């Protein structure tokens, strides 16, 4: 199944609206979508949703022999899986450029930035070390996979606890969680990847949605100036860990600087949210509250199909909080019900169209009325 091609109408509309200082879903340029982190019953299992983009991450561990060149270090392995669940255009069990790119970026951000204390994962030098495996599963692709996946990876790593071990002579005993309290992974710093879509020469959109990403890359393929996705890895100390650019070369020097500045603020706030989520999860676990993914299923919606995020949005308005007795200010003359100037006329079968009523004034005359 090929990816649905983006139409010219969508492309020009999105470009125009962004040039005009707005976004399709009513956000401002630097606004991100709603971030939610949910933990599962196991340690190191979490589901992160960024707007409607959803990613599941699970950390598991096993004892293996260390690599020859690094005999006293544990191993970390990140595996990204994009199944057809994410979007119909993805095929099962097939490595695409997209998957490889995502995997590489996450490895760069978490392995190469040395944020995990690998030496603490060592049990017996040259013989036994812990190998951590992070499985990242993309559940729903609504744009900005990398940011969502990186938050999920980090949350899973920070949440994960490995079983305690004791050495008795040459033997190593691995204690189950019931026997001895498990040990959390040591993280020196918390890097997260933040994505910026570059439009034109100097517009930066943080957390681009699916259509914004598509339009952005389209602009690049057509060869017009600008158009690219800039990924900035940033930790909570405002230190950049990773920079990655897909798409057109950047002409404007300031844009990277601008992105890094904005990312440093955002990175910190994301890490704060993440830490808070982990702490509240920990306190719940101490109280022996059972935490389960079943909690994310909400039945409070009046209808179970209701969408939480509507992709096209007016700023500061939500259809779900409609107040029936809304006290919208109304001018007195608005109260008089005017006969409609426009009429829905069924034209061909199964179509309806808005038409200007024949006997009434046309659109142009509205302005002429004002001129009087």
């Amino acid at each position: 199944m090929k990816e649905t091609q983006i139409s010219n109408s969508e492309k020009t509309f999105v470009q125009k609206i962004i040039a005009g200082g707005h976004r399709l879903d009513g956000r401002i340029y630097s606004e991100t979508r709603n971030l939610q982190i949910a933990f599962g019953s196991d340690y190191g299992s979490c589901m992160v949703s960024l707007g409607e983009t959803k990613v599941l991450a699970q950390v598991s561990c096993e004892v293996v022999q260390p690599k020859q060149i690094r005999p006293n270090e544990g191993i970390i392995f990140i595996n990204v899986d994009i199944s057809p669940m994410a979007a119909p255009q993805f095929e099962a069990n097939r490595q695409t450029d997209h998957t490889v790119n995502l995997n590489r970026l996450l490895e760069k951000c978490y392995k190469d930035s040395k944020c995990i204390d690998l030496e603490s994962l060592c049990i017996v030098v040259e013989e036994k070390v812990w190998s951590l495996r992070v499985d990242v599963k993309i559940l729903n692709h609504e744009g900005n996979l990398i940011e969502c996946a990186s938050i999920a990876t980090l949350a899973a790593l920070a949440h994960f606890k490995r079983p305690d071990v004791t050495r008795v002579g040459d033997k190593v005993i691995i204690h189950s969680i019931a026997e001895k309290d498990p040990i959390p992974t040591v993280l020196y710093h918390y890097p997260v990847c933040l994505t910026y879509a570059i439009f034109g020469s100097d517009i930066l959109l943080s957390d681009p949605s699916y259509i914004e990403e598509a339009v952005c890359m389209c602009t690049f393929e057509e060869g017009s100036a600008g158009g690219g996705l800039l990924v900035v890895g940033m930790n909570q100390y405002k230190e950049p860990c990773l920079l990655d650019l897909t798409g057109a070369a950047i002409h404007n020097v300031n844009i990277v600087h601008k992105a890094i500045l904005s990312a440093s603020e955002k990175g910190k706030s994301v890490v704060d949210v993440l830490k808070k989520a982990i702490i509240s999860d920990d306190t719940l676990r101490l109280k022996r509250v059972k935490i389960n993914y079943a909690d994310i299923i909400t039945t409070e919606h009046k209808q179970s199909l209701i969408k939480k995020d509507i992709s096209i949005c007016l700023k500061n308005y939500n259809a779900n909080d409609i107040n029936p007795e809304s006290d919208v200010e109304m001018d007195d003359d608005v109260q008089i019900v005017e006969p409609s100037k426009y009429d829905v006329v069924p034209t061909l079968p199964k179509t309806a169209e808005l038409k200007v009523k024949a006997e009434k004034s046309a659109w142009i005359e509205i302005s002429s009325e004002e001129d009087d």
Partner: protein
Amino acid sequence: MKVKIGDVVLPGDYCDEITADGVKSKVVLGPGLRKEVDHVYIMKAGVLRKRNPNTFWVDSYQKRYVPSRSENVIGIVVQKAGDLYRVDIGGSCTAALSYLSFEGATKKNRPEVQIGDVIYAKMLVASKDMEPELVCVDSHGKKGRLGVLNDGFVFKCSLNLIRKILNPICPLLESLKNEWPFELAAGMNGRIWIKANTMRETIAVGYAILGAEYLSDDEIKTMCTNIASILAGHVS
């Protein structure tokens, strides 16, 4: 399980009322119904409906389009292949649109259609065993409302929403048209094309349509007034 008209139905249920009607006169089985040897069985989850005198169907939720004859759809041109355009209509395969099936088109005089254009067309052939075919003219060779849609914005939604807003009893378009002018084309394949004077108004139309999916008629009316007052600047 045996069900009646107006019930919530699941696949595998059967309705004897339809069979009984079928003995007396001809009945029309719409989407979601299927006649097997003994009974009329339901194929989709939803509500069983009847329109007098003899039409039955199931109102169900669906996002993926399955082509069906004589429906008006919105497609995106993805390829020019010889004398055909391949149009993505959201179904399992692309639909064919001959360049001769435009108003006034001849072998010499080709219509101007580019890859990526949005097309409003009618399903001419839609059978499960054949490639779907589109036309942009009616049987008199006139284009009517069909053809290329310029500018504006296209978005996707569920197939139900299209049916809901095109239903004559739905107040959405009725309320919206009183507030500000716009153009709209709804494809039965779950795509809506909208165009208004300003971008803000276009977005407002799109938002009103998407927001209406799970609202009752009264709530839709309130929403339309609310949006209009935001647009007018009464409420920030």
